[in-house]
């Protein structure tokens, strides 16, 4: 991406890594479905792998998301 000024061999990719926490608020999905969704999220392939990013150029930033 020369027009933008990015050297793809040197660029750092920042990817969010979300941990889903079922909220106790009773809103949204029933509790067991939220728990199942959270489990699927934990076991899903990593976003950086899915996007085929080079392993040594990725920074994953974790955060919690309550649903």
């Amino acid at each position: 991406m020369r027009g933008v000024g990015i050297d793809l061999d040197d660029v750092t990719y920042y990817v969010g890594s979300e941990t889903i926490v079922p909220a106790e608020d009773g809103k949204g999905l029933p509790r067991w479905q939220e728990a199942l969704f959270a489990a699927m999220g934990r076991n899903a392939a990593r976003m950086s792998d899915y996007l085929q990013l080079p392993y040594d150029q990725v920074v994953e930033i974790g955060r919690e998301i309550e649903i």
Partner: protein
Amino acid sequence: MSSQATAAPTHPNGRLALAALAALGVVFGDIGTSPLYTLKTVLDYTGPHPDPAAVLGALSLILWTLFLITTVKYVNFAMRVDNDGEGGIIALMTLLGVKTHHRPIIISVGLFGAALIYGDGAITPAISVLSALEGVEQIAPGLTAYVLPAATVILLALFAVQPFGTAAIGRAFGPIMLAWFLIIAALGVYGIMQHPAVFVAINPLYGIDYLMRGGLQGFLVLGGVFLCVTGAEALYADMGHFGPGPIRLAWNVVVFPALILNYAGQAAIVLAGAPTEGNIFYRLCPAPLLTPLIVLATIATVIASQSIITGAYSMTRQAIQLGWLPRMTIKQTSEEGYGQIYVGTVNWFLMIVTLGLTIGFGKSDNLAAAYGIAVSATMLMTSVLLFIAMREIWHWPVAAAGAVAALFIIVDGSFFAANMAKVTEGGWVPLLLASIVYGVMWIWHTGATAVQKRVESEVTPLPAFLELLQSGKVARVPGSAVFFTRAKDQTPPVLAWHVRHNRALHETALTLTMTVLSVPRVDEEERLTVEREGDHFWRAEVKLGFMEHPDIPDILASAR
């Protein structure tokens, strides 16, 4: 008419024939190996010494089912409704339920139809390989005990080699299946010669008469008859890869005639007095040729199973891209060609279910009870979606679309009802599997939507962030960075976090959003858009089709 269908005749004839040969090895394995168990299952309903009217009636029903469902419904209707050339229930659902406006009911119908395909995808390899190997009972009854272990080993090996891909041997599939079709056609002719009068069954009145007089038993026979078309949905699902031209050519010239001859031959030898216990397909074969035929049949069923497994990977990738299944690791096993991807999770899931079914049911007779429900339900869903397509895409008047759809739905509905009778004998297995897959899809999608909403509610608008950058309070350090985000017009949360904690940003920064469109593929020129938002600060969007696999570095590298 689709653009692809009109483009097909411009193919040079040789290329069309080659594409049709390749399609034989992928698309027609399932429907092409059904003669191994269809008439046999029907004869289980009619009893060991069926009267001639029952045999002719059943044959007539098989021939007309093949014609109505495969030739009329799939080849001549469904294959004319495509989503940018792509067929199959997910492409059809996306075309009708997502592309123009969001329609939850159409999406549910399409997804449940897709979920059912996993259910039957696990049964097809089990019933096909078992029925192919059951031929040894005719050579050496003593070997009967080894059929189940041998089938288990073959299926285990088939799933175990999947990670390596099949590109190296895939080239042989088409010619092998061509040999299979020629041989079953020849066997059929050999059978017909023993009782040529069998051809009266081409008259549909034999089938209708049998249905009408047969009462409940006649109706239940439909559950067996239906097994002859269990592979028909594949013609539509694989349309995007081969194009409708080669699939039509292969079906009309090779597969359909071979199947008609073979089923007629099987019925003819029953009428001529052949014993009906054991596998009637193998009774067509002269004894000295039986061993090579069993070997060929087993290879053909393995090829059929291979395309079902490959189809499951492809459907999974589409569902992941459209946001209906969790991300799974997708491996590219070879550069080009069909079956180039491998999804480990799906492979092991199918392997466990298939082996469980093989060992649990033990014989193809027993598996026949579980088989059919899921496909007939998927076909019913496809018919409902086709009705909507006829109305909205072809703009047919309601009477015309209704009449055609009603015919399909009556046929599919009868088969579904007849199959439902088998629910307690094993039909619950694919239904349960499909319900689980559908539940997973629904929960994943609902959860992901909730996450998306949560993310969007917490982000800062981009202008506020750009102001902060301009103010000079954020140091710009050498280097460049790409920040992925789902919040397209907002400040990416990872970017906000980075700046908050490091009080610095790379000299060049690019935010990137991936959007999956409701088309199978996106043109190269439209794939990436980059806009300048500020000083060395860019915002990019990658657009992908639901058949495409994201390779972000590759996409960025192709940009100038």
